């Protein structure tokens, strides 16, 4: 997945912010560490950012910083700490998760609308649904992924992690790994999908808001 990058220099120019602001926001953890991508260019080391994400983030910070202190902002922007919850009806109406995934991975109380989905549950559903609708995984495997996420995702306590889906000789498996991680497999292993959970959470949040 090649994504468009923007250099720090261009970013400052484009958004009209200073180095001081950028580093302050980084220190206050308003901008995640993983977005700072170091690359060498012909003029030496430069820092790049994923363009769409950083522009959206800076926009939000600039809009919200008038009413909130930076520390309050950090809580708001932290990808995994959200007290949002949605009911099944809203989920379908807003087309966030497909009905197939909802029906398959919800508790009975959630299905008949008595219980809402917490943000963590939504996140797992959303991640699973994304792989499912991309045709990367089968319905059975989606159950396995939900289970993996439910069992192991909380252990990361909000630290960045990624989901790996691999196949070897027709056998499929999921793994969660702390990000950024460098993993290497034998030649027979094919990594079918790789999802950054922080990114998924970010996408989900922008859909919810």
């Amino acid at each position, binding site marked *: 997945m090649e994504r468009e990058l923007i250099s720090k220099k261009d970013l400052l120019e484009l958004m009209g912010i*200073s180095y001081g602001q950028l580093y302050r926001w980084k220190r206050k953890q308003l901008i995640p560490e993983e977005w700072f991508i170091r690359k060498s260019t012909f003029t030496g080391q430069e820092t790049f950012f994923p363009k769409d994400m950083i522009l959206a983030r800076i926009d939000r910070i600039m809009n919200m910083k008038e009413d909130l202190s930076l520390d309050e902002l950090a809580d708001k922007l932290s990808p995994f700490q959200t007290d949002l919850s949605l009911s099944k009806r809203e989920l379908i109406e807003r087309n966030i998760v497909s009905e197939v995934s909802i029906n398959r991975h919800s508790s009975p109380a959630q299905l008949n609308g008595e219980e809402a989905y917490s943000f963590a549950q939504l996140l797992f559903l959303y991640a699973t649904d994304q792989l499912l609708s991309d045709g990367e995984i089968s319905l059975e495997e989606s159950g396995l992924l939900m289970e993996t996420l439910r069992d192991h995702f909380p252990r990361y306590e909000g630290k960045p992690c990624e989901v790996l889906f691999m196949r070897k000789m027709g056998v499929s498996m999921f793994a969660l790994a702390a990000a950024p991680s460098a993993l290497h497999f034998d030649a027979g292993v094919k990594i079918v999908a790789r999802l950054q959970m922080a990114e998924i959470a970010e996408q989900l949040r922008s859909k919810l808001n």
Partner: protein
Amino acid sequence: MVNPKRPALKMVGTSSSNGGVFGQVKVTGECEFRGDVDCSKLACTGSVVIRGALTAAAVKLTGTCGVESNLASGEIGGTGELKVKGNLRGEKVKLYGQLAVDGDAELGEAALRGAIVCGGLLSAERLELGLYGPSSVGELGGGKLRVRRSRMSALKNLVSPAGAASLKAGTIEGDQVELQYTEADVVRGGDVVIGPGCTIGRVEYRRELRVDSRAKVGQRVRI
């Protein structure tokens, strides 16, 4: 938290603790913590080693302090040597002596005098760096950065010529950058002042650039 009350801790002489959550921690002498420490204030006279992470609202140091993991604090002040194996985060830092950070150091307002070694990025809102010894930083960034060589270091150089007071850095970026006796590949900034003793590969500036006649600058680019 298991213990809502934060008890104070006083340690005198050579002693050790398993760490934990405290109010005020006072160390006089030599002390080792064998775990994470979370306290409202750590005052150390002597030497303290923390085999874990340190979180404190304030740290006051006279002597040496070693942290094996991350150090996060509101205020850090004192004289002596501070070694952090992980990342350092502090809002207000005023330190005389040696600061060594293996990871990144993210500071608010920082006044440092002595020698600094930082493996990763040293960033600060406002940084005043007085060089007394050989310093190196992977990357330096922030709002207002000022690096100067102290007058005393000329005297020190006479006594021990090894380890001249200078700074080595990969990239330096800031809105206002003022450098002396610094060697860097790239300097980027709004207003840039390159003082005596600097060797800079490339300077990119937005508004103003001043270069001392005793400095060497490769390329100068206005952006």
